């Protein structure tokens, strides 16, 4: 297990180094931030001063070298537009995005698995057919459109829920979270549902096909022959066996929900990290973009690691293989 961990961490460092180079060089090619940041009335001398203040007057290799050196010391640069450490800006936004992603994840599990298992157990019932065609909608409707429609229905027409933004926060272990109060949760419901819909559709599909396969297996037949109650068969024997693909997919999807909830966060004016990224791209705030993408790499690497460990916990065969290799 230890050798396995060390190998994974080594791979991760390589990925991070490669990403750092790609991200830095490509963002350099997009445009010169001074052209966007400077007041239009600024003359060439003032533009040059701004370049110097922001360290943009140095050649690319020197800027990159400085970035790497500082990054190794835990400093990912300062935002041009906010004059604060880029990492601090991102971490400030992190609780908002994490809570959105986790609420969405929980929603997709609690919507997706029961519906999927139901559709798998009774594949020919009209209710199952409705679920399956409904899940196609979940896949195919664009995220921003769903978001806007939900806003129009629940915020504009019914006025039940707020149209966007983040609700009042309370402090939990020093972190500002909003899911502890009803008022805060109300702000979370629509964006989380928007984000969850696609994942829920995915979970429905996965758990349906998993269930259909599992009910034909010998162990289910034996369990039935043994006289176990159908509830117990589904909850213990079927559910446990269909979880592996679901956990894999949801793990990856959680990563993308955290890193790239950009569309949903934009539609709901939700102050998460994705919103910060898209705003920073528009303003060519290079340090924030680079720091953000670096952090995303780290998040993905960590999530993948956790998923692999979860595999091992769920499936003894994985454990065996790993100890051999």
């Amino acid at each position, binding site marked *: 297990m230890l050798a396995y961990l060390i190998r994974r961490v080594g791979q991760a460092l390589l990925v991070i180094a490669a990403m750092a180079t790609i991200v830095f060089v490509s963002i350099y090619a997009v445009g010169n931030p001074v052209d966007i940041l*400077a007041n239009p009335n600024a003359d*060439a001398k003032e533009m040059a001063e701004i370049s110097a203040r922001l360290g943009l007057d140095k050649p690319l290799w020197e800027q990159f070298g400085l970035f790497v050196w500082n990054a190794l010391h835990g400093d990912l640069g300062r935002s041009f537009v906010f004059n604060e450490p880029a990492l601090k800006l991102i971490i400030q936004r992190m609780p908002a995005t994490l809570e959105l992603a986790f609420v969405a994840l929980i929603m997709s599990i609690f919507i997706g698995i029961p519906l999927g298992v139901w559709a798998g157990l009774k594949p020919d019932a009209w209710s199952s057919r409705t679920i399956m065609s409904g899940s196609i909608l979940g896949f195919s409707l664009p995220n921003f459109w769903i978001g*806007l429609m939900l806003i129009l229905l629940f915020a504009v027409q019914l006025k039940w829920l707020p*149209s*966007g933004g983040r609700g009042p926060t309370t402090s939990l272990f020093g972190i500002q979270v909003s899911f502890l109060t009803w008022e805060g949760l109300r702000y979370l419901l629509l964006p989380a549902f928007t984000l969850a819909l696609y994942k829920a559709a995915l979970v429905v599909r996965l758990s349906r096909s998993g269930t259909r396969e599992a009910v034909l297996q010998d162990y289910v037949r034996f369990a039935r022959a043994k006289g176990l109650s159908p509830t117990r068969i589904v909850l213990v024997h079927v559910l446990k066996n269909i979880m592996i693909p679901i956990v894999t997919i949801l793990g990856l999807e959680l990563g993308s929900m955290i890193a790239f909830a950009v569309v949903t966060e934009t*539609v709901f004016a939700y*102050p998460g990290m994705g919103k910060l990224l898209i705003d920073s791209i528009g303003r060519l705030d290079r340090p924030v973009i680079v720091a953000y993408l670096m952090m995303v790499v780290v998040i993905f690497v960590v999530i993948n690691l956790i998923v692999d460990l979860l595999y091992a916990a769920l499936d003894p065969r994985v454990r065996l293989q790993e100890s051999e290799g």
Partner: protein
Amino acid sequence: MYKRSALAVALLAGTMGVATAQDLKVGVASEATSVDPHFHNVGQNNALRRHIFESLVSADESQKPQPGLAASWRNVDDTTWEFKLRPGVKFSNGKDFTVRDVIYSVCRIPLVENSPSNFTIATKGIEDIQTPDPQTLIIKTKGPYPLLPIEMSVFGIISADAFGAGPDLKFGKSGCTGVGTPPKSADFNDPTKAIGTGPYKLKEYTRGTQLVLERNDTYWGNKPAWKTVTFRPITSAGPRVAALLAGDVDMIENPPIQDFDQIKKAGFNVVQGLSNRIIYIHLDQFKGADWKTPGVKGTDKNPFLDKRVREAMSKAINRDAIVERIMGGVAVPAGELLPVPLFGTSPDRKPDRYDPEAAKKLLAEAGYPNGFELVLGSPNDRYINDEKVAQAVAQMLTRIGIKTTVDSMTASTFFSRRNKYDFSAYLAGWGADTGEMSNSLAALVTTQNYAPGFGNTNRGRYSNQKVDELTAKALGTIDDKAREKLLQEASKEAMQDYGIIPLHFEVTPWAFKKTLTYQPRVDQYTLAFQVQPAK
């Protein structure tokens, strides 16, 4: 059940006095990047600044200078200005406002760390500041500097004592003495440090979520109508409109034109006012040796060096059609770089008439009977419907034989490429910060480096000696009447020479509840203290 209890609460609030009617929530299109008034010279920061930190001179809806922290000013001679401070003004921490605060603010401006765009633009004309008494400020300039009062409206005044300026505080052109340790930008995000004289005080700043202001009850001027003001950044237009319709905010900036009907039908007001922003097309007129203008095909020469070609292009554009069909009527066709009645404009200067036949003739005369091929550069997320306007212009030019394709891109890429002279022709916009003609002329049509600040945004590199001379002369003329006449002449010269092709002036819309009123501003700022309850 929920609704009923909400109703009960509302009734209760109604009987207890109108607590909620004193709150104003505004959905803004872009968020201020810092509360520090000197950190970033950009629209949204400057709008926020006016709530908390006032300036010596303030600007009204049509950008005319008005008394602010200075009650009056006059020029003693060509290079000396005297400002009399308004007596009895206090900062929100209770300290008196004096000349020291003005000197401190001017001294601090160049010292802001990591500023992406600072305010030295406004203070660079100051040679010396003298203070015969605590209420009088004498500002010396190098040459005649008629725009000094306007420059004084650009930056906010911060408190010298709140940040520990020494008793020996003194202005020096190459560096001040007694400044102490100037505050960091992030300090201002703390309500106890954001001390100004303005009608509002900072209450809370949660980046990305909201910025809350509280009425400054010791404010010297008219008390604003709202006890608390909340600015919520909602950058996408659709969700911003939804927030208004849902009642989450009372007022929004920049509702999209296509949503006007829906907003009005839902019982909200939309107001719109002419802005100081011109949308124009610049043509590459660089005369450098070996310069081959990019994006032009079908000719070896640079066609834009011929005035007839420029004139033909202007005549080929149907400005009324663009305004009517693409801008939904929410724009005004332009005949020069600033709209009437701003300073330096000529009421008789009409937009060029649409005349494709005359345009074709001019092209033929210039030696391009079959036209040529052209690539028109344009941003696609910077100005109202910018890409669509560029497409329309391209079609109109194609109709007279100039086969035009549009190369549109996101603003951050566009401006970098434009500044590298990547386009033979490009569509862009210019907002005149000063609200008068010298700013537009100097930036867009004067020869680069003819004088300091000239031709900064003249990326078509148009050059006309007469325009340069007239503009420079105007900038050295203190007398308002004489200066205005010079600017009118300079503008006419540039327009008649087709140095630049003006398209239209943007119109800025706001939408809000029926219970509010707002006077549209030329500078496009949303100022909460000017939002009034409707009578």
